[in-house]
């Protein structure tokens, strides 16, 4: 039991921090976030070729670095801190995890190698418009695209929304259900090259411009039989695990962003003078900053605890008792970090006073990211309800 970084992990952290501060400064973010693709292809190539972040969790047999989820979280934390606009999250935390969790040997061999080579971006498309029901229900009911078996393979139909990088990714991991099924039944996952006939994609411009969403419409799209991931109709547990892993990843980004708005606020407070004193000398403002700091510290524990759990859950030889905590650990991390980032970004706006309200200052970029990432995959209340179910409901059922 050691709950601190190894020297190697500290090195990765410093490398990521230095590089991302360099390449993803506010000017770069603002330039690229306004484009339709939402990322800078040249920068993405540099990340893949020079830093190889996309290869961190890919096993060595597919050309990856074979490192764990802790190293991934370290890099994601720095990406969140610098609001990196890139296909990283989609490619690695949705597409890559999808392949790792649910892919056939053939799918992994092909696509993970292409991801490692920097030749393929990916994402996962799984939610229909129904994900907006009830103010955001990210459960199995949100899977509404349909598949049916054909002689050569499968036929896909349906509209998928809120797909991260959905309009640009090369490979889509698609969740669909057998027509007529409900809930967790009938769900299958497929690997779908985005350029297949019958696929229409469009950009859905968003309030948080630093991560782009797309809509993907499938009209009678034919898939080969080897597109299926796992057993037909039994895909829900895999999908759920991919989403749990995605929650840990989002939480790591949120942690980085929450720390960054705290640092920005402290710096501003030390400079801004009102009534002849720096505003950092006002106790009420100091205490607000202290609360932000507390939340960052607890969020840090939440993220790296969950990352350790994810590590065990992805490792075939991992400790099963720890791996079994993934659902809960991911919900804790996502819930706590969602609330932390929204709280911290809101406090940062307040602490910056009028200037925080301008487009020119960067705080609003984090504030918008805070709300977007909070709502994605369910906010703090939704995660807590999930945890409550795990804690309280099993005995009601028995």
């Amino acid at each position, binding site marked *: 039991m050691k709950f601190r970084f190894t020297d190697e992990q500290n090195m990765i952290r410093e490398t990521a921090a230095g590089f991302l501060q360099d390449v993803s400064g506010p000017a770069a973010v603002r330039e690229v976030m306004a484009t339709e693709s939402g990322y800078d292809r040249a920068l993405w190539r540099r990340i893949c070729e020079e830093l190889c972040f996309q290869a961190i969790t890919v096993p060595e047999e597919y050309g990856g670095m074979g490192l764990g989820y802790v190293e991934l979280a370290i890099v994601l934390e720095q990406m969140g801190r610098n609001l990196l606009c890139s296909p990283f999250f989609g490619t690695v935390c949705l597409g890559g995890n999808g392949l790792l969790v649910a892919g056939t040997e053939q799918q992994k061999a092909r696509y993970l190698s292409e991801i490692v080579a920097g030749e393929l971006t990916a994402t996962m498309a799984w939610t229909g418009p129904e994900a907006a029901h*009830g103010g955001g229900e990210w459960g199995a009911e949100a899977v509404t695209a349909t598949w049916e078996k054909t002689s050569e393979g499968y036929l896909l139909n349906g509209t998928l929304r809120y797909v991260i990088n959905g309009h640009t990714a090369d490979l889509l991991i698609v969740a669909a259900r057998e027509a007529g099924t409900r809930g967790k039944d009938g769900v299958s996952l497929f690997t779908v090259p985005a350029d297949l006939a019958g696929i229409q994609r469009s950009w859905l411009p968003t309030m948080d411009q630093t991560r782009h969403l797309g809509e993907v419409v499938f009209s009678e799209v034919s898939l080969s039989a080897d597109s299926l991931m796992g057993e037909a109709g039994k895909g829900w547990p895999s999908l759920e695990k991919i989403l749990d892993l995605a929650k840990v990843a989002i939480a790591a980004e949120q942690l980085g962003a929450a720390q960054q708005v705290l640092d920005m606020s402290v710096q501003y407070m030390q400079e801004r003078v009102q009534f002849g004193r720096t505003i950092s000398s006002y106790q009420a403002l100091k205490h607000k900053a202290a609360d932000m700091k507390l939340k960052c510290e607890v969020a840090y524990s939440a993220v790296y605890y969950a990352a350790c759990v994810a590590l065990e859950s992805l490792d075939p030889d991992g400790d099963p008792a720890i791996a079994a905590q993934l659902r809960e650990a991911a919900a804790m991390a996502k819930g706590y970090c969602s609330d932390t980032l929204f709280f911290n970004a809101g406090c940062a706006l307040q602490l910056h006073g009028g200037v925080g309200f301008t487009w020119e200052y960067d705080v609003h970029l984090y504030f918008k990211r805070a709300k977007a990432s909070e709502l994605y995959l369910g906010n703090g209340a939704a995660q807590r309800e999930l945890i409550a179910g795990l804690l309280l409901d099993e005995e009601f059922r028995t």
Partner: protein
Amino acid sequence: MKLTFSPEDEAFRNQIAGWLRNNLVGEFAELKFRGGPGDEHMFPEERKRWEQKLAEGGWTCVGWPEAYGGRGLSIEQQVIFFEEYARAGAPGRMGHIGEGLAGPTIIAFGSEAQKEKYLPGIVAGTELWCQGYSEPNAGSDLANVQTRASLEDGKWRIHGQKVWTSLAHESDWCFVIARTEPGSKAHKGLGFFLVSMHQPGVTVRPIEQLTGTSEFNEVFFDGAVAEDIVGAPGEGWAVAMGLLGFERGVSTLGQQMQFQNELDEIIRLARANGAARNPGIRQRIAEAHTGLRLMRYNAMRMLSSSQDGQADSSALVYKLHWASWHRNLGALAMDVLGPEAELIDDAPYELSRLQSLFLFTRSDTIYGGTNQIQRNIIAERGLGMPKEPKGR
């Protein structure tokens, strides 16, 4: 203490409601529910014409004394006017700075000549005002004014920069706090000036907000001439403080009706998308509803006492209460929408009404005295606690 209105007041309510029903039509129909906070930059020309329409009906400056062209309404009837105005969805007033701030200040502190010169244009809806109050280094520290006024050839000339001036580019006049005594500090040595916006030496630069829009401006004065000074040179702080008192007027009830419109929209959406079944959302909607209802009775207390020249402690907490409430409403709107909250109307950055609400309400807890300044005021004036020490 009673909640019912008199029959006369109810008749008045029908009168103004009827007028609005008959006149908020035709070219003005598209202005419904527009021009509020976060939307103040929209339809300026149409809304200027609407100001004059209102004036024709005698519905500007309804609380001013009849001697100055007002309607001399009782507090109750002003309450009714502003409620019905907002209930009808009549647009955000372009003339509110003149009617609510500049005019009352001139009435209270100005000379007869100033009253004759400035008040009629406000009543007629033909002359619009903006305020030159805040400065980059005087945010919460209002008195830290660095803009200077100097007498040159018998004329006051203004040099300096103001900020957060809404509608500056649409306004004819600006009232400006400037330092008349070089080297003076804080609230001493200030003057309260009336400055035409139509002259060289006045430059307006819009501030792009986090919404991508620009209601607010920076205004640069490079030797612009002030046509008048209200009160004596050096006594501008007293005038400015009197003006701040006018900000907590009956129009606050109109603001509440706008809030009600926003809450109603959120409730409609929650019912439509099923968020109304989410227990946490239910709690927050009930809390918002309660907060708004109680805000109304806080305002009633504030108005009932100010009418009798009394101060009520409800006035001390009013800003903190509504600003925090409104900020929470903005977040609630997003959480009701769920993932749809993210999708904007169009690229590059056209926000929906509720997205604007979400972002814009973050300024409510800052402008006009941050929540922190409000708490200082409550503790110091309301509870007699020591003042924050100043560093200078």
